[in-house]
């Protein structure tokens, strides 16, 4: 009897699983039955988005802004998104599975260049492909929307050099090695620093774009007692980590150094700038809304004329922090 009960529990679990899925479909179909909608969602064209991951703060804000833009077009198309946990192989699988559903527009935020062949397959099947953020080699895509990390690095370098009046030592905390964003942000800044003979740069460790490694590195660095006037981190998370180490350190420079990061996608960072803990960040623009806008245009028959759309950065300082928060309600926490 005990065996029977256990087995029934197992069967019940399967049935429950079935019900779970039923509930979901019930929601969808009641949506399609709604009188307010002119067309049922199923008959709308599909816009599919293969996201690299949905976990880090920048991607969270990216997703939130994308969904907000999608909300303006609910009567024009259906939207589906799948993340790939930063696994290129997984993303290839997602793209190829999307192709089975024949989307009218495909958006891809590539994990690495490895997804090139999958993107080209879609493009060859006459599906317009919009690349968001990172690009791929070749020209088999419709349009690439993203920020310009070299230019952001250049502006950050310029900002720091000006704040130091052209004279001082900058500690640079590096992003993950081998990643374009880290190389570009370093090279851009170095271009600007080279114009100021009084600026010296100390190359810090690779802190993988993460807060904790940057904090550990900074704690160790401060032990050395080597003087510096500014910290330039390749992203905000590392700038925060570096600041926290500085804040808690027993031995530190007499004058508070300047802390500058990049990304500007978290409320926490903007708050720290308002509080005078960090000095500035440069927004790494999120390509989601622009990508959705272009997708909507394509569905109306308006193909984009440019192959590359570069989104501008925004400098956030104590003076502009409040306005920035108002302009960007979807920042990650």
């Amino acid at each position: 009897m005990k065996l029977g009960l256990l087995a029934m529990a197992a069967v019940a679990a399967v049935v429950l699983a079935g019900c779970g899925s039923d509930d979901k479909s019930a929601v969808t179909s009641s949506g399609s039955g709604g009188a307010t909608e002119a067309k049922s969602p199923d008959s709308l064209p599909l816009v599919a988005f293969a996201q690299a991951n949905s976990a880090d703060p920048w991607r969270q804000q990216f997703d939130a802004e994308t969904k907000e833009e999608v909300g303006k077009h609910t009567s024009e198309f259906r939207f589906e998104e799948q993340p790939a946990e930063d696994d290129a192989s997984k993303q290839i699988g997602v793209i190829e599975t999307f192709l089975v559903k024949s989307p009218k527009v495909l958006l891809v935020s590539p994990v690495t260049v490895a997804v090139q062949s999958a993107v080209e397959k879609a493009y060859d099947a006459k599906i317009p492909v919009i690349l968001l953020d990172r690009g791929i080699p070749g020209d088999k895509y419709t349009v690439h929307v993203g920020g310009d990390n070299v230019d952001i690095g250049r502006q950050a370098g310029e900002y720091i050099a000006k704040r130091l009046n052209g004279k001082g030592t900058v500690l640079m905390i590096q992003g993950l090695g081998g990643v374009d964003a880290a190389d570009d942000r370093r090279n851009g800044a170095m271009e600007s620093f080279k114009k100021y003979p009084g600026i010296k740069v100390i190359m810090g460790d690779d802190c993988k774009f993460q807060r904790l490694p940057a904090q550990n590195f900074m704690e160790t660095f401060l032990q050395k007692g080597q003087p510096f006037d500014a910290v330039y981190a390749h992203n905000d998370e590392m700038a925060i980590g570096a600041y926290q180490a500085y804040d808690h350190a027993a031995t530190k420079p007499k004058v508070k150094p300047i802390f500058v990061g990049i990304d500007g996608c978290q409320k926490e960072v903007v708050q720290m700038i308002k509080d005078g803990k960090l000095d500035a960040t440069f927004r790494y623009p999120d390509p989601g809304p622009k990508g959705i806008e272009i997708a909507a245009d394509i569905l109306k028959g308006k193909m984009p004329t440019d192959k590359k759309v570069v989104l501008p950065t925004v400098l956030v300082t104590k003076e502009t922090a409040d306005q920035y928060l108002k302009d960007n309600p979807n920042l990650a926490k």
Partner: protein
Amino acid sequence: MPFSAVTLRRWLPLIQKYQGLVGLVILLAWALWKSPHSEDSAALFHSTYYTLANLRNILSQLAVPGILAIGATFVILIGGIDLSAGSLLGLLNCITATWLVNGGSTPMTIAWVLFLGTLTGAILGAIISYTKLQPFVVTLAGMVSIRGIAFVYTNNANISGLHDQIAFFESPWLGIPIAGWILFATTAVGALVLSKTVFGRRVYAVGGNTDAAYYAGVPVSRVRIGAFAINGLCIAIAAILFTARNSSAQPSAGMGYELDAITAAVVGGTALVGGYGNVLGTFVGALFIVCLNVFLILDSVSYYVGQGWKGVIILLAVYLQNLGRRV
């Protein structure tokens, strides 16, 4: 009562033996009912799920996790576990890509990578056999070290610039990608080794009861090394197909793949305690998981909700397996 304990007891062993298949059939029926409607006349039952394009899609996604899972089955059958599979896949991915980019000949590169994979597996097996350390610990150490070697080997950079040297693995033959055929062949050979050879019977003997096997004269250490070497070979095959599919390499590639392989084996009816299961079951288990992934995307289920269901399914599979044995 819909069924009595007696009828259940009669059917249970059958369900357990083919539990992966039972799950797969339920999933496929469910997909038929739920997947989006297709206008394509070539689609069976007017379902996007039952199209040739989706079959190809499933098979190209299945090759790498499927072959990894077959290797994992050998290790699990002897009562072991391999946590280093994902790291080794990443390292061999980097080695394959680097050699091909630097002008290595394709057949030689493939041969060397297969050899390196087998050798690494055998070394892990030997360490486990001669130190008597638990496979969990040894392969955990392997996972960390091999990942480190991959980062050192590539100098922490991605490798791209492969010309189409090994792209043929992705192209179809008789409608199915060659990678899919390699998976079929690996499964068939694995099944034959387990059921028809002395080594195969010894694998079950060592996994079922190591002491009894030892006293019966089975060379336990050699069987262990053999099982880990086969696992290493499977990882190498998977790494070559992985490189072909991504046409690039990343030192971080394959993170967490060892768990997918173990999951496929477990869902396919292989017992984690060893001595029970087979590669056909694992093949079905891997197929089930890929079919489920594809179904969840086609049915627009949120990725994270899908993950939640996968956990429930794993638990259910293991539970079903243990059901009869408690009685």
